[in-house]
């Protein structure tokens, strides 16, 4: 087990810099998820930790050891690839035991370790099959088994679930989390799926364009996004953002309607701001959770509804912007029905319209 430290880590391809001097400290046994849209540098960062990409600048340390110039095999890591990268010419057993065989461990030790990993991941009945004869989920488990067999200091996962169908993905997510609890090892996990990030991570690292936007526990980044990018990226459906201007303690939206400044935020008179409301915090009266001490109400015409069973997602228009709201204990909604909505101001956010940064009260 070990910590991982990234210090001013840079990756550049010629003049093109794709990772900009990022710093990150990952604690021993921590499950850290790097999340962000395509091309944000998360996979490149992971591959640099693995030693599959050269480091253009800065430093990576695993444990107390700087590993910048060590080849992958000397870093004591293991990695699960997006496409599994199982060795097609070997059986499951051989795939699992490959790393130990390369390390010239005695066959008896290899058998013990392989059987144990197979047991953990319920691969025992599949041991003599080739990868081609396995389903997607089974291949995924073999890939994980291959990673755990050698007890590395750090596990790296590169979008391991994105080739699975939705149902299997949920199952494997749970298995990965259980595996982490069982092994207690340090995990760095890359995904573009914010649900995966939220459900798996001890800490989430949100990346954009080669920069780290925010680091925090899932709840921290959900409750206190530092900017509009994080606010819209984390959480589903994405946070509603409304443009407005500050006027005497309230935000005046483009159509003239006023919303009080959320209690945890502050903004100068006349400043151009972005008002953030999650769908969970704007609900029709009578179909809402208790909303807290600070409540605002607005009337909106519902243009579309998406029933999800326990709740219904409502699409409505506020100040010329489409807003998504939730309705608990759903009832049928007529076309273009106007409803009164409660906004839980305690859970609302305010951002600088120009920079997108949160305007938190100091």
């Amino acid at each position, binding site marked *: 087990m070990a910590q991982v430290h990234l210090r001013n880590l840079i990756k550049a391809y010629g003049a093109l810099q794709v990772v900009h001097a990022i710093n990150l400290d990952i604690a021993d046994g921590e499950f850290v998820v790097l999340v962000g849209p395509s091309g944000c540098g998360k996979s490149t960062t992971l591959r640099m930790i693995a030693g599959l990409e050269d480091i253009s600048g800065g430093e990576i340390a695993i444990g107390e050891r700087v590993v910048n110039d060590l080849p*992958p095999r000397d870093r004591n890591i293991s*990695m699960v*690839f997006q*496409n*599994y990268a*199982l060795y097609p*010419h070997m059986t499951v057993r051989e795939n699992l035991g*490959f790393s130990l065989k390369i390390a010239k461990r005695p066959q008896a030790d290899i058998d013990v370790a392989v059987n144990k990993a197979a047991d953990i991941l319920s691969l025992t009945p599949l041991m003599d099959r080739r990868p081609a004869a396995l389903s997607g989920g089974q291949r995924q488990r073999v890939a994980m088994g291959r990673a755990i067999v*050698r007890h590395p200091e750090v596990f790296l996962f590169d979008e391991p679930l994105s*080739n699975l169908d939705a149902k299997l993905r949920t199952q494997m997510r749970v298995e990965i989390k259980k595996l982490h609890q069982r092994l207690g090892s340090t995990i760095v996990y890359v995904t573009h799926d914010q649900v995966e990030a939220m459900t798996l991570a001890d800490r989430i690292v949100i990346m954009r364009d080669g920069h780290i936007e925010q680091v925090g526990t899932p709840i921290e980044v959900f409750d206190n996004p530092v900017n509009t990018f994080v606010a819209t990226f984390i959480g589903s459906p994405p946070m509603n953002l409304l443009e407005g201007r500050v006027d005497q303690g309230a935000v005046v939206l483009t159509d003239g309607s006023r919303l009080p400044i959320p209690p945890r935020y502050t903004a100068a008179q006349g400043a151009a701001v972005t008002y953030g409301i999650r769908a969970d915090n704007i609900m029709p009266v009578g179909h809402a959770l208790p909303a807290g001490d600070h409540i605002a109400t607005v009337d909106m015409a519902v243009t579309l509804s998406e029933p999800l069973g326990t709740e219904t997602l409502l699409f409505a228009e506020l100040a010329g912007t489409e807003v998504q709201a939730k309705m608990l204990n759903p009832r049928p909604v007529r076309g273009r029905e106007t409803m009164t909505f409660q906004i839980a101001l305690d859970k609302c956010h305010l951002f600088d319209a120009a920079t997108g940064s949160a305007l938190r009260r100091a």
Partner: protein
Amino acid sequence: MASNQSHRMRRRGLKIAHFIGLFLAMSVICIPGLWIVLNSFRPTVEIMAKPPVWIPNDLNLDHYRAMFGAVGEGGVPVLTYFRNSLIISVTSTVIAILIGMAGGYAFARYRFKGKAAIFIALMVTRAVPGVALSLPLFIIYARVGLIDTHIGMIVTYVAMNVPFTIWLIDGFFRQVPRELAEAAEIDGCTRWQAFWRVEFPVARSGIASAGIFAFLTSWNEYALASQLTRSVTSKTMPVGLLDFTSEFTLNWGGMCALAVLMIIPALVLTFLVQKHLIAGLTFGGVKG
């Protein structure tokens, strides 16, 4: 009902036409070969008969017997030619495959200056007809003393085969996902081990097929061999066919017999290796 029946009739008609087409095509491909095999087993009179005799009256091994007989009685040093062919083809194939693997891997995996230009240059060498090189090659070989040697022929065939093997093997390595080697490196392999223990076995079937092509090219090549070999020390089987021509006669039967002997190892090799050409070996290693 009527339309059903007419539909069925048409389907059957198409099927028959399909078979006839296939039969004609296969005939065009196979009859010359079968004709050679047939001729090697029957007397010269029947071979030369006009109109041709399709159904043989008398099959015997006379031509084979004569061929293996003493020189001067229609005998030809078949075993020596066979040995020459084998040494030259096998050695040149092994070298071409080794170079082809190194080159193909480099083209498939690495980016380097002038990559496209080098690749195109390699392919362009294939556009030059081999015979056009025979005179310059002859002069050079004569100067350095490579005429009528195994080494000379091996070098020639390696040069002929390398562009093709590089091109083929490049294609096969491209199909092997990069992640396999990366996974192997993370599993503790050096770059070299990752290649030999993972990438090579996965691309093995492709490399084998490149090997067959290279072998058959060398085994069957005539034009250059006829210029660069002089005597039994290096003459290959295709060149040996010419031993059956003399000033006024052509021993067709003997030629056909030698041709059959030439075809057999090529056929055997192809069948042997074909078993190992299991398609889709790479499939299943990646993706779901």
